[in-house]
């Protein structure tokens, strides 16, 4: 699967959240459904950035307990935790080495570039199973 589908409304919610957390990084989980040819984002859930406050302009982290809670919620709703999204303030929507070192395969990483407090670009990525690099996915906004 190399296509991820997100509605314009959900994309707008991500943009608004990322602009609100600027100049810090923000993020959350992508809940969705996996089908034969594409992944579809059904819902997004904002999760607090718990990285040290003075580092939040270039770092994002969430509590393991948030993963546990949201994975259980997804199971209860018949959905799947398909990925996570975060912002890169005043930088391109390209994954960093830090992103790669902390990434899992089979998971979609949506990065939003926020330039001067305005969401400028959104791209979707997925880690290769050998952890060597991210591949860009086709992001379809419907």
């Amino acid at each position, binding site marked *: 699967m190399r296509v991820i589908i997100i509605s314009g409304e959900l994309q707008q919610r991500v943009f608004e959240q990322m602009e609100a957390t600027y100049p810090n990084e923000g993020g959350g989980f992508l809940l969705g459904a996996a089908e034969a040819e594409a992944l579809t984002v059904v819902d997004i859930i904002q999760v607090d950035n718990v990285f040290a406050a003075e580092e939040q302009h270039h*770092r994002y*982290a969430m509590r393991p307990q948030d*993963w546990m809670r949201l994975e259980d919620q997804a199971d209860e709703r018949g959905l799947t935790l398909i990925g996570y999204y975060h912002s890169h303030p005043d*930088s391109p929507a390209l994954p960093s080495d830090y992103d790669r070192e902390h990434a899992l395969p089979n998971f979609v990483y949506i990065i939003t570039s926020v330039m001067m407090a305005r969401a400028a670009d959104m791209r979707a990525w997925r880690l290769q199973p050998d952890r060597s690099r991210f591949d860009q996915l086709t992001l379809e906004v419907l």
Partner: protein
Amino acid sequence: MAKIRIPTPLRAFTDGAADIDVAGGTVGEALANLLDQHPELRAHLFNGEELRSFVNIFIGDEDIRFLQGLDTEIDANESLRIIPSIAGGLK
């Protein structure tokens, strides 16, 4: 047997199974048994012999890093859970 719950993205390496029965008297032995059953998990859980920094093992609500780490003893019917610490950011 003890059980280990696998995080969603890694279930592709366990044939889709969320919970895996494992043998072992410690967390480390249980993880070794998990990797014997599903070797493709290793690269994503371990860096050499160490757990990757973003990989957490919980017993109930307790992170094993605040117990005895991989040497933490477990009961035969213990429920373990692998929880990634999601993180990202610029260089």
